[in-house]
């Protein structure tokens, strides 16, 4: 018999054990997903199209408006201490290092993590995942690996394209509303941009791709029964992916730039 005074300790201990159990389960799930890269190339190609190509419009539009707004903000703030000329360089560095990968990742999380969780969750509640097992097919290899690898491969490309479009958004505002000379704006953008500014954003993109697909797949594969279960899985996937991206961004930024 455990004394009542120890109940809180017991509850904390149980919560810690559950947390460790959850981390272990997700780690094993991720390892199994990453191990299956070449198992189903046809499915991988289909997911590259769904996750990469079809996310281009939303990522492009987000980057365009973000770059444009960033140019306005930097010009407005910079003028307070006569530094309005730094707009091209700050937009380029800001897009490449932070806003391109983070906003691209968040937009893909909203679009892709929810779609993956809803699709796999529906497959779970309609017994399609059980059917895969009865057909001697590993559901992780067939459903999860192609989505995870497609997201890891696509996100850096989406981030790269988002960087270019975001810088272009800044250029459009700079030239048309802030009085910058077009050639000077472009030259200044390039002049202060370093290789690692861009490369770090692409590496972040790959990490965010893993987080997005893993969240969608994990919550989809573990969806509860019925439409409510699928709804909860979808919400959880988007929340987990979004928070995961922001937390990972902080960790990676600290790792790359401190």
């Amino acid at each position, binding site marked *: 018999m455990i004394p009542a005074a120890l109940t809180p300790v017991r509850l904390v201990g149980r919560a810690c054990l559950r947390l460790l159990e959850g981390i272990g389960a997700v780690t094993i799930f991720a390892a199994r997903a990453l191990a299956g890269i070449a198992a189903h190339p046809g499915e991988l190609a289909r997911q590259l199209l769904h996750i990469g190509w079809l996310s281009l419009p939303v990522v492009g539009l987000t980057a365009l408006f973000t770059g444009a707004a960033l140019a306005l903000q930097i010009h407005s703030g910079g003028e307070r201490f006569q530094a309005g000329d730094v707009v091209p360089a700050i937009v380029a560095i800001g897009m490449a290092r932070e806003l391109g990968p983070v906003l691209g990742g968040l937009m893909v999380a909203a679009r892709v993590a929810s779609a993956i969780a809803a699709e796999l969750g529906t*497959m779970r509640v309609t017994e399609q995942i059980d059917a895969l097992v009865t057909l001697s097919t590993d559901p992780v290899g067939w459903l999860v690996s192609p989505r995870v690898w497609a997201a890891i491969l696509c996100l850096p490309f989406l981030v790269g394209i988002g960087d270019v479009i975001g810088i272009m958004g800044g250029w459009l505002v700079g030239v048309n509303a802030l009085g910058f000379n077009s050639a000077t704006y472009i030259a200044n953008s390039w002049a202060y941009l370093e290789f690692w500014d861009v490369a770090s954003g692409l590496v972040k993109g790959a990490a965010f791709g893993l987080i997005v697909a893993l969240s969608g797949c994990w919550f989809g594969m573990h969806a509860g029964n019925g439409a409510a279960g699928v709804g909860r899985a979808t919400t959880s996937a988007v929340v987990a992916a979004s928070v995961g991206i922001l937390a990972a961004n902080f960790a990676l930024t600290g790792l790359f730039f401190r």
Partner: protein
Amino acid sequence: MIEVRGLAKRFGDKTVLDGVDLTLGQGESLVVIGGSGTGKSVLLRCILGLERADAGSIMWNGAPIGPDFMDRFGMLFQNAALFDSLPIWRNVAFRLLRRMPRAQARQVALAKLARVGLGPEVADLYPAALSGGMRKRAGLARAIAADPQVIFFDEPTTGLDPIRAASINRLIREIVDETGASAITITHDMGSVRAIADRVALLDQGRIRWQGTVVQMDAAADSYLQDFIHGRAPQSQSGV
């Protein structure tokens, strides 16, 4: 062929299976009946390896069920469980595509679809375009596509009108007779029982309460079985 001994399964505090003993002979069609929530589907899921049993053994041809068994059975799910993202022929040929060229697998799939009464015009449709009865037939075609030695049917007539249900029952019986496969069917539809069963087992409170042929079932003295067969509420639960 399949021998289940002392199978037990709990979910939290709830005991679902409490020592189930069951055998299935070569070419035999066994139908497991029982009320809702008595563990029929859990029994099937344990045999298929979709749930891990807490105790007991499941043997196939004298050895524990292993990976080789997975390639030798077919399964018709309650709602067919066709893959939404694949056309019907690829659903049917899913397992075949791993062991034969695509064109050959498609030909086999078309033949299996024809066997269950679906024409080639259905082959390239997606499951969402099919009615419930057609989906069930397509699911049946997938279950028999690789010429399995054992076929499992989970509530094969659920959601179908009486005519379509009778037609699915007849198909199942014909396929079992033609292929010589053994079959386990889970149902609470007495029409299915009479059309499909060589032997009937009644699952109640986690155990096999009664088993025998359809003729023996009609003559059995077990009051719960008779209530179940005739759809009568037991006196003690008449108000439920």
